[in-house]
């Protein structure tokens, strides 16, 4: 056999790629702080993370979420397939609705969380942080279903904040007034179909827009033209992460690790341990991890995710958690995400503690190390376990939403 001597393809690109919105985002960038997110360049901040954060809570923030991993799931068995895949009952998620979901391995340990969009009867999109094509493919055995990776085929923008409804209405979107939280609709944008979902990572009023990448720049321009008078601002990841902690939402690699990536035993988490029992439906037919989760429910979980309201103003980054102020008996867990909440003026954190600690209303102690002019200090701060999100304004659920 003869070896082909001509190059048959170009080399795979090195380094992060540019999203469909990149030309517009980079134009508004003034601080040149970027990181890589699933193979794409994504901004940490574009002008000032503090001010960008307030766009989420005060006006409208725009975040480019095109790098989100996306799969299209279709076929006669799509529903049965999803019901086998995730822990919640997808039969209750009608066309035009979106469901937050987690999926587990056979040990009932979370592989990832994400949102499932029921686009049309029998047609779904799964949107998540991590890449799971191997797992999703393996799970198709026995189902007449097709799973297609479509991350690069859909550009996405999160449009979040109190004036987001006004911005989209001004841009000409019709019928938005009836769209409830976790609803989705298809609209025409300059001759192309755009999907709008009332979803987000901020616990505020907000939407996500999904469109063909070829129309991405036109969408950006139309959005910012409509948004000028509503103080629309682009934001980076730092601002978004702050808002998600206030919302009490989980982030992979912070509150949990994808179970299929952990090396050490006991470093993964079950949905029950992450406060997601409401997402586990034991009444539906078999699903991945059912047996293990049923057993965990009977015998009790090892860990418990907690939301902490911490006294004082020292941020509890990576702190150990104790059951008492003297640290007697060793630590009962640790903080996974922490921040000062600018909107609540509260010192907040998410953490994981050993059961039976961590019930709402419990008092725990957080060991905070903080630096002041080179010197380190230590403080044991009292913290209360709370069950509600730190920030969850009425406008998030208002239908129709108000002007701001």
């Amino acid at each position, binding site marked *: 056999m003869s070896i082909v001597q001509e190059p048959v393809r170009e080399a795979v690109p090195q380094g992060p790629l540019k999203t469909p919105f990149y030309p517009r985002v980079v134009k508004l960038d003034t601080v040149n702080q970027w990181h890589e997110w699933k193979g794409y360049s994504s901004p940490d901040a574009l002008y000032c993370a503090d001010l960008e954060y307030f766009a989420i809570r005060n006006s409208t923030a725009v975040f480019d979420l095109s790098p989100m991993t996306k799969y299209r799931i279709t076929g006669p068995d799509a529903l049965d397939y999803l019901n086998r895949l995730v822990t919640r009952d997808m039969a209750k998620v009608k066309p035009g609705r979106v469901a937050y979901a987690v999926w587990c391995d056979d040990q009932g340990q979370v592989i990832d969380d994400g949102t499932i969009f029921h686009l049309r009867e029998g047609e779904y999109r799964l949107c998540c942080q991590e890449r799971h094509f191997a797992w999703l493919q393996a799970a198709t055995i026995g189902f007449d279903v097709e799973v297609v990776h479509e991350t690069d085929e859909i550009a996405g923008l999160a449009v979040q904040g*109190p004036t987001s409804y006004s911005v989209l209405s001004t841009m000409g979107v019709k019928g938005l007034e009836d769209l409830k939280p976790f609803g989705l609709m298809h609209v025409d944008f300059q001759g192309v179909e755009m999907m709008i979902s009332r979803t987000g990572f901020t616990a505020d009023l907000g939407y996500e827009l999904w469109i063909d990448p070829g129309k991405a720049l036109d969408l950006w321009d139309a959005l910012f033209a409509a948004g000028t008078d*509503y103080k629309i601002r682009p934001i980076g990841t730092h601002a978004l992460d702050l808002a998600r902690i206030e919302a009490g939402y989980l982030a992979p690699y912070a509150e949990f690790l994808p179970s299929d990536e952990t090396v050490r035993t006991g470093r993964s988490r079950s949905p029950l341990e992450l406060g997601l029992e409401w997402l586990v439906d034991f009444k539906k037919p078999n699903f991945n991890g059912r047996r293990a989760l049923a057993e965990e429910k009977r015998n009790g979980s090892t860990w418990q995710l907690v939301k902490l309201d911490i006294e004082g103003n020292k941020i509890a980054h990576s702190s150990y958690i104790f059951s008492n102020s003297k640290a007697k008996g060793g630590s009962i867990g640790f903080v996974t995400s922490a921040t000062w909440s600018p909107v609540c003026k509260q010192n907040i954190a998410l953490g994981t503690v050993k059961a039976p600690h961590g019930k709402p209303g419990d008092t725990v102690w957080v060991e905070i190390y903080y630096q002041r002019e080179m010197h380190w200090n230590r403080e044991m701060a009292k913290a209360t376990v709370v069950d509600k999100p730190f920030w969850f304004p009425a406008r998030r659920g208002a239908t129709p939403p108000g002007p701001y």
Partner: protein
Amino acid sequence: MKTYDAIVVGAGHNGLTTAAFLAKAGLDVVCVEKNDYIGGATVSRNLYKDWWYSNCSYVCSLLRPEIYRSLELHKHGLQVTPYGGSLTFMQNGDYYGSYHDHEAAYREVARFSRKDADAFKNYSADTMRQCRLIRDFLLRTPPDPTSFKPRDLMELIRIGGKINEMGEDRIGETVRFWTMSVAEYLDEYFETDVIKTALSASGIIGTALGIHSPGTAYVLLHHYMGDVDGNVGSWGFARGGTGAVANAIAGAFQAEGGELRTEAGVDKFIVKNGKVAGVALDNGDEVHANVVVSAMDVKRTFLTCMDKSDLPEKFHNRVENFKIRGSSGKINIALDGLPTFPALPKDSPLYLADMHFTDSMERMERAYDDWKDGTWSKDPYIDMTMPTTNDPTMAPPGKHFMSCFVQYCPREINGREWTQEDKDGFQKSVFDQISNYSPDFKDLVLHAEVRTPQDIENEIGITEGNIFHGELTMDQLMFNRPVPGYAQYRSPIDGLYMCGSSNHPGGGIMGAPGANAAREILMDLKRPNTVPENFGDD
């Protein structure tokens, strides 16, 4: 007739703060307010179509985060958003911008002087050292230096310790700082006139002194010691205007079962045998309680609402001599669109900044000369903000609200009351100055509200319209505020307390006087304390 546990007189932010903490302790509290709206000078008013005016106080930084958190003000609608930067337009067509971004800020100063750019870090550290000292005192009651009570002695020792740990050299610096003028202080660091001018303004805002007057360096500190989310010295806007602060505190007060009564101005405190028994309202009604707390300034409290015969002679004289001179006015404007400033690049982040038009120390001091001559500054210092460049709730989309704080502006014009002609002249001096830098500004004006110290006194009730309820000079600070011997929120009348900004630690939307007063009252009533402690810095 019903007897309340406590009456708070005046629903400004301090009165409401005291009321909220007392109610939180389980007291049956009524807060009476003379106007038909609450907030006092902490107010958003709907004075023109769909515009909401922060028509008195207009920015927020000093509000103690401990109070914010403790009263859960976010649940009552408060959101304080930081804003970016500061800007001074120059007569030569240039401008000096102070940017949120550190490196941009450095480069901008270096454009004028590399030496000044590098001096900034020393200036910041030295000023921050003073901030750190004073911040520690904010949510604490000043000790009485003449008292031998263990509590006063302990607090004096504590303060002594704080000062002592600074070291000999820095104690000397501190004493100088407390007494020197802001101009002298800035001269020690900077050479560029416009930079010194921009910084010097914090030394005279709300104060009837000039930048060369001794004591003004401390006033600068008063504007630096606040923070927004831990960024000391940063300023922000309350979403929906300044009234959102008072409304949120009132919400917390009412959630604790407190009662608000508007259009209930106090005519006199009812004093029987040296004890307070309640208040007599303007409408003739009486409200009874054994604890009455005045959020009014010290002059209005003791000279207007009380018979001289009920007060010790010396106390009365001290109150009469309390310095509370009117020195600033305000013009609040509804705009049909965003004014353009040709000197400023179109997409400059400084459109979100506070803007100023005084570019030399000479002009700054001359503005004060006019005040001494008994009239408003013909070339005033204006602190101009447009909160609607960030806040979508205060004006219709595309429209703007502009707040102009104007220094100097006297309580009386050459010893007589203001006339309409005077007010027009005052407005003209401000409008002319702005339109020198923004040719389309005047055409965009839809409505303007002119507020002289006289207007503020008449409407809000603050004597001479002094924004701090009394000047922030050393003779009127700490254990001398408002009057030596009465700096612990108590008065010569049993049961009558003071919680307004005439008390330590002074004015601005801080809430600290209100919180400190509540703590003292609860201590006297032997109730559990509901007032939070200082977060602390170490």
